[in-house]
């Protein structure tokens, strides 16, 4: 079953479309954000196990089955923690990119008085 993966591609396509076709700087920023959502969604889908639970061990588990047993049953049923660590990093990186983009958009708005890309033509190519 790989249909959810394909849906994240649709989301990525929406982001790319916004970046390529929209002339408003804020719309471009939104396009970048949507593309980042797509990749975060993709990674979390990679880590899910059917019927799995959050990868957090609790004292109750240990008391119910004993520490050694609890470790095994926990590892057998929990979802994959690695993609979650990757997504946490990726969310932070996305936030950094958005902050930088917003700073540039503000500065460009100060210089040109508009968010319209087509009115910024100081560069040839």
């Amino acid at each position: 079953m790989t249909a959810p993966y394909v849906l994240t591609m649709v989301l990525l396509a929406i982001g790319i479309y916004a970046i390529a076709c929209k002339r408003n700087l804020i719309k471009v920023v939104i396009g970048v954000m949507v593309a980042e959502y797509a990749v975060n969604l993709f990674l979390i889908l990679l880590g899910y196990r059917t019927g799995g639970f959050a990868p957090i061990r609790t004292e109750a588990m240990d008391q119910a089955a004993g520490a050694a047993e609890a470790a095994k049953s926990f590892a057998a049923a929990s979802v994959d923690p690695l993609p979650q660590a990757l997504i946490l990093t990726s969310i932070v990186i996305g936030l950094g990119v958005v902050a930088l983009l917003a700073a540039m958009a503000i500065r460009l708005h100060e210089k040109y008085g508009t968010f319209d890309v087509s009115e910024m033509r100081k560069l040839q190519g």
Partner: protein
Amino acid sequence: MGVMTTLYFLMAFIIVAAVIAVEARDLLSSVVSVAAAGAGLSIIFLLLGAPDLAITQVVVEVLCLVILIRAAVTRKDTTYDARPNTFAVVGGLAFCTLLCAVAAYAFKAMVPFGDPKMTMSGPYLLKSFESTGAANSVMGVLLDFRAYDTLGEATVIFASIIGAYVLLRHVGRRTDARHESDR
């Protein structure tokens, strides 16, 4: 409702919100829609067993919303009547269709949803509590097994804040430096 139904529902919601965010004529609606998509994403995180990410996503979303609204939406904007570049629209749509079609074909060969190969992370789950003392395996991975990545992540956010400071300086170049250095 089973997990799958909820998941498809939420993904459809995110996609609709993203389309509205991209196509809305009003910038405020756009920004609010993209925040709605982010909120949907955080519910998916919760659904798929990632409460850490759900918390982080929600607060980051709020912060992005605040930044975008304060920074952007309050400013004058003149692009409402702008007509999109036809060539770019056709090219963009063609590329996106191609991407989705290729993905729909090729992703059938991926390891299916719900049954990941956990070559690297299986031992992480097994050893996280015993070896690092972190009952939350995500923290065990993030700050012990893969702490070096987290150093990089902290550096990225550091670089972006310093970058924002640098970009928002009032004066970038010194105009009087010429005389100083020519002395």
